[in-house]
């Protein structure tokens, strides 16, 4: 089992992105704090450097800083039942403590509720703290494909906010600029989809534990040339590994798929647990949450409206069942793991029914594990092992 060479490239890329954000801000480039489901293409076209508080919270959790930051937020009266990403990130804003050295303050925040209802509150507090404008893209929830009315509503908001964002940025958003950024986003998303697809090979050269980490550029750098170049390189490496028959898991014995965000406080331990039992986590709903098919450089506003009204978390149970069923079939999985994430109600509620229906459709068993994406106080490795080990054994995998 060989480590991905691109792990080092990723570390360099993220470091450079952090440095670029700091340098750019010093040089007078505006910074936009955005949610992962925001149409980042708009702020890129206006010359902003985007920053992703969700990514930041995940980094804080992976670096074991999340508990202290969350406790600071709780000390200000915010309930421990709220999203841990929000508590961690707000704690970082209010204390100035961050694993990135320092946070570059935003010139605006851009929010879309297509991933959850929490972000509108979290980013409102961010906007109030930094005294900057907040742009909110309201995207209707639905279980089927977005209706024409939904797309019209979202498009209308995008068109209305473009000149306002331009005013805060350093250049005007033109259709031409938006087209170029959208084209790069589309290309990066296509490459990312192909990267994820490599795990369908047997043995899998790449697992979702790798994807959870290597998704950082698609979240925080899509729409840029660096992002496209990054995934071209990663895809090449994975293809080489697949052709050589290199396996991400030694002696892969079982393949499973994952639903929900990673458990960052236990990421390394979980990865080891899967490896020890020779179980390859071949796909997940989290890293493949964006859709590429709608982005249309010829009509960027409509394409963005469609794309950001059709991401995973804007849909309900029926859509999740479809996605998981497809994944299980496509990746040849023998089981699936549903992370019931205390911090993310939008992602987690409904999973019990999802498990039931997906199993009935595919004949493949699923297990629900209780944890949290960033709050270590809600993560117990013992509990995870107690749930996962018997499940792995039932799949014919073991140490």
């Amino acid at each position, binding site marked *: 089992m060989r480590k991905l060479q691109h792990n080092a490239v990723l570390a360099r890329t993220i470091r450079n992105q952090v440095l670029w954000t700091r340098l750019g801000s010093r040089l007078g480039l505006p910074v936009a704090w955005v949610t992962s489901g925001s149409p980042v293409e708009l702020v890129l076209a206006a010359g902003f450097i985007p920053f992703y508080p969700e990514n930041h919270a995940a980094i804080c959790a992976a670096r074991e800083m999340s508990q202290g930051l969350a406790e600071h937020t709780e000390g200000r009266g915010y*309930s421990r039942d709220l999203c841990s990403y929000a508590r961690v990130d707000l704690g970082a804003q209010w204390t100035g403590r961050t694993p990135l050295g320092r946070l570059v303050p935003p010139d605006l925040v851009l929010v879309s509720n297509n991933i959850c209802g929490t972000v509108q509150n979290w980013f409102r507090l961010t906007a109030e703290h930094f005294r900057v404008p907040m742009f909110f893209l309201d995207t*209707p929830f639905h279980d089927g494909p977005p209706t024409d*009315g939904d797309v019209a509503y979202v498009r209308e908001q995008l068109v209305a906010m473009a000149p306002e964002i331009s005013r805060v940025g350093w250049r005007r958003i033109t259709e031409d600029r938006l087209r170029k950024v959208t084209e790069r986003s589309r290309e990066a998303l296509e490459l990312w989809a192909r990267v994820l697809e490599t795990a369908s090979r047997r043995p899998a050269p790449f697992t979702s534990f790798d994807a959870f980490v290597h998704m950082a550029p698609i979240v925080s750098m899509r729409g840029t040339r660096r992002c496209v170049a990054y995934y071209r390189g990663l895809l090449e490496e994975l293809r080489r590994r697949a052709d050589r028959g290199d396996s991400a898991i030694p002696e892969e014995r079982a393949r499973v798929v994952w639903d929900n965000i990673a458990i960052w406080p236990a990421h390394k331990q979980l990865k080891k647990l899967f490896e020890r039992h020779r179980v390859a986590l071949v796909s997940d709903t989290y890293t493949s949450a964006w859709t590429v098919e709608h982005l249309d450089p010829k009509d960027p506003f409509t394409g963005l409206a469609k794309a950001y009204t059709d991401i995973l978390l804007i849909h309900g*149970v029926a859509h999740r069942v479809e996605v998981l069923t497809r994944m299980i079939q496509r990746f040849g999985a023998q089981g699936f793991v549903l992370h019931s994430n205390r911090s993310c109600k939008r992602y987690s509620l409904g999973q019990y029914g999802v498990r039931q*229906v997906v199993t009935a459709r595919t004949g493949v068993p699923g297990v629900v594990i209780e944890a949290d994406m960033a709050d270590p106080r809600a993560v117990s490795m013992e509990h995870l092992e107690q749930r996962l080990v018997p499940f792995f054994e039932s799949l014919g995998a073991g140490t």
Partner: protein
Amino acid sequence: MGWERLLEVARDPVANIRARVEREGRPLAIAMSSYVPLEVLDAFGCSAVRWGPVCEDFPRADGVMQAYACSFIRSALEMLLSRNLPARLVATASGCDVITAVPGMLSVARPDLATAHLRLPIRVDGAPARQQAVRALVAFCEEVRERLGAPLDLNRLDQAARIRQEVRSRIAACFAGLASGTFSAVPAYGAALAAQSMAPEEWLAAFPGASALPSGDGVPVLLSGETVPSLEVIEELQSLGLRIVADDTNTAAREASRRVHLEASDLVEAIAVSLADRPWHSPERLVPDRPAAVAARAREAGARAAILLHQKFCDPCAFEAPGLAAALREVGIPSLVLELDRQRGLTGGQRTRVQTLLESLP
């Protein structure tokens, strides 16, 4: 009749809903949000009610939903899964992530039960939001029509919109009377709670008018929060020496503040606009000046303290609480958050906290 009847219904809404369905012989439609307009469900020929009561145990609901959802929703699920209510349709509206998840969960756990989701906009500013509200309500009506196999009766809609508006106006008048002292909290909340499950015609016939039952003594307070789980909470707060003079709950003033332009040429459109333009929104909508507006109302009503009654695991409330407390503090009103979880009344600890708040007032 009169207060006795309204308070009886308020104390046991589930029994009243069962009796009502038996009496009316119509399909029961349960709305799980104050943003679902009951008049529309009336016009589909349903016995329309709004969910409010809270259970203490959720053996069935726990099998379909994680425990980190609010007890308001878990109670509704428990009732539906136990088939204690002969529901035919469950109507939800966009707002919090938990309510949004309900139709999906029911599609697996109770596939025989019809659901319809009103996809209202979260932003409530300006024409695009209103247009989206109209599109959402039209789509919702289409969904209900398909699920129930019954058409929307426009004549009935006209009647229902008028009578429901009359109910809301009278409830709003009750709550306006709290500040002036012409009304007291128990009948006011009793009237609001009863209106959630009674037929509006029956409610109007029972409602004795706004001049009865003046308020007693007590420290004037604002009550804010989502659903008031029972009349017991109000009675307990009163018994502790509080006099509610202003309300900001979904059960009462927020929902009652909605006004439909009844003379509009398109009533469906007018109802949709009334939802987007509701004067007193809930915190799940994007209304940045809401805390300041609530604080101003509290001050105007002469409140000396505020009780923020929150359901545990209610994210919109939990996010709003510190900001609302700060806005109230700015106008000189201290506040206390009481977090309710699977309980109809207050716990001993909560009663002590209320007493401490009262004792700390100058």
